[in-house]
């Protein structure tokens, strides 16, 4: 019940806003902020009461919704969704503050923001496929409005693109959901769309699994976005208002990765296993491609957007490492990306508010006049390139570690993204912050004000917190991830091999036993080195 | 006997039907139509559906066609209003196409129709097609359609009145 309350609180806040007069902008903003803050605090309360030791759903509630179809209002949080949930409320709060200066239709804006918040929260708590889909599609509407109304010059194109891309993907998922629904009904006799029940009881042959997997994949891959489906993202990001970008990067993209964890892996473990190479290569291409394209962008937001493609590539790679390192890494990287990219978007918004341009070439030398801004930007940028000690590193390393267990080559290719990340971020940083303050338009720019600091500083704190002591975050999903991993373990459906595994670590990784290692070693025994002995 | 009557009658109907379609003057079309309907009444008689044959004459050839003629007169349609269907080259081409199409359809339908094997008529009772017989069926088995037809007519009447009323009020 509490969870329901927290989830729907923003929605009711939005309803309340509807009845406020349009003119009283102050009250509107304050109300929205109050709701967002309250929601965040309540979600923190959820976190503190969360039991880390179990993978079971908590705060759950299961009441019939559409009884005739066996569809329930089933909600709950587990380790995988908890942090995303909290991050959603957190970023909503940040975004409300960040949108303080919006002049155009502020009431409608805040309503859209709060409704969006409920939509996103719903996605993360839904434990019924039907309900999940409802929220999944529903949150498109406010986001579409936010991009389309308060966005930049090409906002209409961008918003439609965003909407259609996502919708096309998710509709195929709908077909798969229906199929599963009837399949479950047929095989177990229970008409239900309950995710937990389906997770436990879904049993389909590999061929079908692949099709269903693809349907889910398309929906989530577009959302993530994975490599060939990413083109909506730069457009949407560039055109969206600052807060929209933050939410988009911070939460909406995470819904895709969340979907993979919640559906693709547990529902279709075997298909997931079969598709690992494909995903891995797509992710790697995404990582490298995103980074390369980001490097030559002329628009700050577009650069950050393409960097998101690259970062999310890491997340995907981690998920499909199918081992605890990778998945935990992916989860924490989810959070990290939300924080650091969110911060970057906020910061880009700061200069955009002042200059109404985001072209890199328009800036230069900002470090001189905006020291606070520079420091914040620097921290966010470094976090984004995964400097150890900051949050990005923890996630990236775990992801790479995870994928390394599966395939060293993949890990190597993916790691090259780390180099490229440094290139594009630093180059951009240099061109914006450093060099001479040449452009006369920039001279009068003010440093960040209090409100802007309030939006960014919490993110900066989190950057270091997660970077140095991620335990409070990571332990929330430890149990859930282990459970998930045991579920998708290839051992479940692969005939056991005899020489499999006396090694102490890694459950599904391509383990190198001492025997294999020896033979490997021997095969490539180094030739006697002529230089070694004279 | 039946053969002797049927084929000429059928030919007559077809020719008149073509006359309806290809007559330049609407009045001519209407006259052809009346002729065709009478021909059909003959065919109904041939099929021993006397009641329907009578209705055909009364309702169709009588009432409906009178209405047609009435409207044609009311609207004062002259020959020139519809300059016929072969007036331009484009239309000629299209017409040939349409004709070919029509023959094609007919051929296809004929193909289908000739597959029916019911070639000899059932032995019909004497009452077949009589008013009494039809009436009984109408008032027992088909009483509902009969009643419903009244609603249809009422609605049509109201509608016709609404549309054709002289003054806009």
């Amino acid at each position, binding site marked *: 019940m509490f969870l329901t309350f927290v989830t729907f609180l923003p929605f009711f806040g939005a309803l309340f806003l509807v009845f406020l007069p349009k003119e009283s902008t102050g009250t509107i903003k304050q109300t929205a902020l109050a709701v967002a803050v309250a929601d965040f605090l309540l979600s923190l309360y959820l976190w503190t009461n969360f039991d880390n030791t179990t993978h079971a759903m908590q705060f759950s509630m299961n009441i019939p919704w559409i009884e005739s179809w066996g569809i329930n209002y089933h909600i709950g949080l587990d380790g995988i969704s908890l942090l995303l949930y909290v991050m959603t409320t957190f970023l909503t709060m940040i975004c409300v503050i960040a949108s303080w200066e919006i002049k155009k239709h502020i009431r409608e804006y805040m309503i859209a923001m709060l409704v969006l918040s409920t939509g996103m929260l719903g996605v993360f708590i839904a434990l019924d496929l039907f309900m999940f889909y409802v929220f999944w599609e529903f949150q498109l509407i406010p986001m579409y409005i936010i991009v389309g109304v308060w966005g930049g010059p090409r906002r209409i194109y961008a918003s439609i693109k965003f909407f259609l891309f996502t919708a096309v993907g998710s509709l195929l998922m709908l077909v798969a959901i229906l199929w599963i629904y009837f399949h479950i009904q047929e095989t177990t006799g229970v008409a239900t769309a309950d995710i937990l029940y389906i997770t436990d009881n879904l049993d389909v042959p590999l061929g079908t699994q692949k099709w269903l997997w693809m349907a889910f994949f398309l929906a989530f891959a577009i959302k993530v976005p994975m490599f060939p489906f990413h083109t909506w993202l730069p457009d949407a990001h560039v055109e969206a208002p600052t807060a929209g970008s933050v939410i988009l990067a911070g939460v909406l993209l995470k819904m895709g990765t969340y979907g993979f964890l919640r559906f693709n892996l547990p529902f279709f473990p075997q298909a997931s296993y079969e598709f690992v190479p494909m995903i891995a290569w797509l992710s790697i291409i995404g990582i490298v491609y995103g980074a390369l394209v980001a490097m030559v962008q002329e628009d700050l937001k577009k650069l950050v957007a393409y960097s998101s493609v690259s970062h999310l590539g890491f997340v995907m790679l981690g998920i499909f490492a199918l081992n605890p390192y990778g998945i935990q890494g992916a989860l924490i990287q989810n959070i990290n990306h939300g924080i650091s990219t969110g911060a970057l978007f906020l910061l880009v918004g700061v200069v955009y508010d002042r200059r109404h341009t985001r072209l890199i070439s328009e800036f230069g030398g900002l470090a001189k006049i905006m020291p606070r801004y520079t420091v914040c930007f620097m921290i966010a940028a470094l976090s984004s390139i995964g400097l150890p000690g900051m949050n990005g590193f923890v996630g990236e390393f775990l992801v790479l570690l995870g994928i390394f267990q599966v395939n060293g080559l993949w890990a190597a290719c993916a790691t090259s993204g780390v180099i490229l990340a440094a290139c594009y971020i630093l180059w951009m940083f240099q061109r914006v912050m450093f060099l001479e303050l040449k452009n006369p338009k920039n001279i009068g720019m003010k440093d960040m004000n209090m409100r802007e600091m309030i939006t960014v500083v919490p993110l900066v704190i989190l950057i270091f917190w997660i970077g140095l002591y991620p335990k409070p975050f990571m332990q929330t999903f430890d149990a859930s991830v282990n459970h998930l991993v045991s579920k998708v373990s290839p051992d479940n459906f692969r005939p056991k091999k005899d020489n499999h595994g006396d090694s102490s670590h890694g459950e599904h990784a391509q383990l190198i036993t001492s025997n294999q290692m020896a033979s490997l070693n021997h095969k490539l025994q180094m030739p006697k080195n002529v230089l070694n002995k004279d | 006997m039946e053969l002797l009557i049927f084929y000429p009658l059928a030919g007559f109907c077809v020719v008149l039907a073509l006359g309806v379609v290809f007559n330049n003057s609407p009045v001519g079309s209407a006259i052809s139509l009346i002729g065709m309907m009478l021909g059909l009444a003959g065919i109904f008689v041939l099929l021993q559906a006397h009641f329907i044959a009578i209705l055909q004459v009364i309702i169709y050839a009588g009432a409906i066609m009178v209405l047609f003629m009435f409207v044609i007169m009311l609207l004062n349609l002259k020959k020139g209003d519809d300059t016929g269907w072969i007036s331009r080259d484009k239309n000629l081409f299209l017409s040939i196409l349409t004709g070919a199409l029509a023959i094609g359809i007919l051929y296809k339908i004929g193909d289908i129709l000739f597959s029916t094997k019911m070639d000899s008529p059932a032995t019909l009772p004497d009452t077949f097609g009589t008013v009494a017989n039809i009436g009984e069926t109408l008032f027992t088995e088909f009483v509902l359609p009969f009643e419903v037809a009244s*609603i249809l007519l009422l609605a049509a009447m109201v509608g016709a009145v609404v549309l054709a009323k002289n003054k806009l009020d």
Partner: protein
Amino acid sequence: MEPILAPESIDLIALAPVLVLSVFAMMVLVVDLFGGRNKTLLVFISLVGLLMTAISAFAKHPIPAYSFNDSYIVDHLSLFFICIFTISSALTILLSVEYNKREGINPGEYFALILFCTVGMILLASATDMIMIFLGIEIVSICLYVLTGIQRGNVRSNEAALKYFLLGAFATGFLLYGMTLIYGSTGSTNLFKIAEVTQNLGAQSNPLLLMGLVLLIIGFGFKVASVPFHMWSPDVYQGAPTPVTAFMSVGPKAAAFAAFFRVFAEAFPAMSPSWELLLTIIAVLSMFFGNLGAIMQTNIKRMLAFSSISHAGFLIMAVITKTSLAGSSLLFYMLAYSFTTFGIFGIVILLGRKGEENLEMKNYSGLAYKHPILALSMTILLFSLAGLPPFAGFIAKFYLFSAAIQEGLVTLVIIAVLNSAVSFYYYLKVIIFMYMKEQETEFRIALTPLTLFVIVIGVLGTLGLGIFPNSIIALASY
């Protein structure tokens, strides 16, 4: 000559809705004649009549009940459809009151025709005899021809009526021919008997019967406006008075689908391999061309017409699926669709004024900031049409698709969902105009109460069916 005995199968209780409504329709005519200038009474009578009809529909117990030599049935499908019809007719009447005053349409015959049309729809939904179906269709069509052309001073209205009439009569010819051939090859006009015969015939195809089916499909395809028999609908929707358009896109369409479904699912299930393909083609074409047509439209009524063509494509899926689940989904879909459609048309009516209907999308520019609630309602309704959760349209589509998937029509469903993705585009276009464009013309909207009432009902129905669909689903499923 022996006297004709009243057949035992006459069952006036089963027929009660038809009788009640006919009586009220005539009462409207009479009251109109003698009632003087105040037409409020007419509205009242019509609404009461519809209410009574809905109530009297439930008089028959137990269901299903067959009467009139099995040519009239009271079953779940028909009951539910009667509810849809009465709701849609009532909403039409409510919508029309102020519209008629504005456009100077005489309400007397107008209401009577709507009620007669409703009678026809009820008959259509309850008929299990081809003659009855034919008559039902004709009652509905004739009333609609007249209603379309009822703005006699308006050339567009005239033209629409003419087009509708000519094409409708043309299609009637096909329908009739189809029925005839079916009659000829099965020896009966009764659907149950036909079902028996075809059952025995099995897949062994009788060419006459098959051709009859083709022709039947054309007839019904015309009535439900499916490609390629849809061409009339955009023109007619555009030309007809807006409340009539709303009515047309819901009630008669639902009735046509009721008959369509009944004929194909109950009379010819045994023949399904032969007609499934045809209907699939038609369904796909309808979705596709409906969407294509709607994409480029700038006139909102035409856009809705094309959208309703693509919806028809979806609904044909239910006919193809032909299970009872499909029937239920058809019911639900139509109900959801009617609420949504009436809401939208209510808004469309509100935006128009005497002499200028403001049907172009650009007339909606900036609506969201002048009349936010109205725009929000429109948004909700459009998203419902698009099939987005949590609105009624989504549940309806979900229901429909699930019925289809259960029967294994996965490919068809995939085509359908892709099409509905395309359809998002044009629904979004309206929203773009409302929210994302600057106001062009001044809105002079008279917020007339009855129209608002209809909009509110539409929105509430859309939301209610979307969020708490359970009870209605339970009602719809049989």
